[in-house]
């Protein structure tokens, strides 16, 4: 059986591919991709970074949110070829199990997740917000997360988690 990695990178003969170089979580990755490959699928299957989830593939749920040159985007709605030469940040770039990012800590402290499916996307949307606006109001947090759906936790604790993280990050700055 071929691995998923090969499935993405070993394209059938005769199908044109493009060589792209994308900086993913600070590391340059060069891959050959079919132009129709979605960035989300390159990240998950090609690069094996399965923290980026796909829930709808139609730009609705936000589970596939990554940062593209620092801005939140839905990676199911960009072709991998379009990311050539750009920087992508996924949840794997946020922290490690022993050293959580304050946003990850916030989700833990405030019970911001149940099944965790929406969580990576929520956290990256939150990161984009906090980088621009370190002291957001509750409304601003809700607005920043408006493109992300959660089907089990409910939004209350997610919003609290982001506000918790904002506090902690401001403390660290001070």
């Amino acid at each position, binding site marked *: 059986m071929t691995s998923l990695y090969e499935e993405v990178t070993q394209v059938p003969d005769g*199908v*044109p591919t*493009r060589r792209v170089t994308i900086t993913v979580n600070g590391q340059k990755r060069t891959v050959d991709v*079919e*132009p*129709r*490959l*979605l960035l989300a*699928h390159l990240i998950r299957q090609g690069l094996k970074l399965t923290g980026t989830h796909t829930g709808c*593939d*139609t*730009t609705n749920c*936000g589970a596939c*949110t990554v940062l*593209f040159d620092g*801005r*939140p*985007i*839905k990676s*199911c*709605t*960009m*072709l991998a*070829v*379009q990311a050539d030469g750009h920087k992508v940040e996924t949840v794997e770039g946020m922290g490690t199990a022993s050293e959580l990012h304050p946003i990850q800590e916030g989700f833990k402290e405030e019970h911001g997740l149940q099944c965790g499916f929406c969580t990576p996307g929520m956290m990256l*949307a939150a990161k*984009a*917000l906090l980088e621009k606006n370190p002291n957001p109001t509750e409304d601003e947090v*809700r*607005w*920043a997360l*408006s*493109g*992300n759906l959660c089907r089990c936790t409910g939004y209350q604790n997610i919003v609290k988690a982001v506000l918790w993280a904002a506090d902690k990050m401001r403390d660290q700055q001070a």
Partner: protein
Amino acid sequence: MKPPVFEYRDPRSLDEALGLLNEYGDDSSILAGGQSLIPLLNLRLARPDYVIDINKVPGLDTIEVLPGCVRVGALTRIRRLERDPKIRAVAPALSDAFQNIAHPQIRSRTTIGGNISHADPSSELPGVLAAYDGRVQLTSSSGSRWVSWSDFFVTVFTTTRESNELLTAVEFPTDQNFSYEFEEIARRPGDYPLAGVCAGISLDGSQVRAARLSAIAIADRPIRMTAAESALVGVDISNAAVRQAASQAAAAEINPMDDEHGSAAFRRGLVSTLVKRTLDRLAGVPS
């Protein structure tokens, strides 16, 4: 793999992009922000032979605040437009409309040209363009033409753009005498509106010289509410009864359809409320 097979082209100049459009026309799709096109590809509702990605075409992401108009290059993203202080200074209602388009992730990518070319009757910008009496620039290998909003939008997802033309710029006139307000009602923030209204008036003291009112998500294309506009001309905007009469005229002249999001009567009510609210604000009265 979600999208169907296509040949991918990413022209590096406007000339190259126009040459490709000339060659492939109807067999191709232009890829701008991709927020409508890529979902359509993922669902295989769109199956173009060629995808012409214009994101690397230089010079199309401009914002110009000129005497008499705001002119925006087709590739300018909503995220940048919604934060632009120069636009907010001359056309605050336009900035408000940008902020109502979808969610942050989508606004990071959506381009003004893609949004307007897509001609979704529920989109804010086509309606705002109608209220501003704006126009779009269409460019092909043989030159450019400017087309007014009313000659551009035909029906749902359909415009008078020829298949060899690229929408290159959008222009919102900013007549010094006109002030505008925009407001919509959506089920959740960032959703497409159930109804939206953009209202502009030009005043002589408190007397209305001219009025421009458009409705969004009411017909198969953006519309102007000419009966309500006529009801306003010559009257004193500070008179609440006058604003009420205009909102009733708007409700009476529109012809919304029933759909799964709401009945015609419900939408009529929404438009009437939105006309009232925008006119109240234009009159400086809290709703």
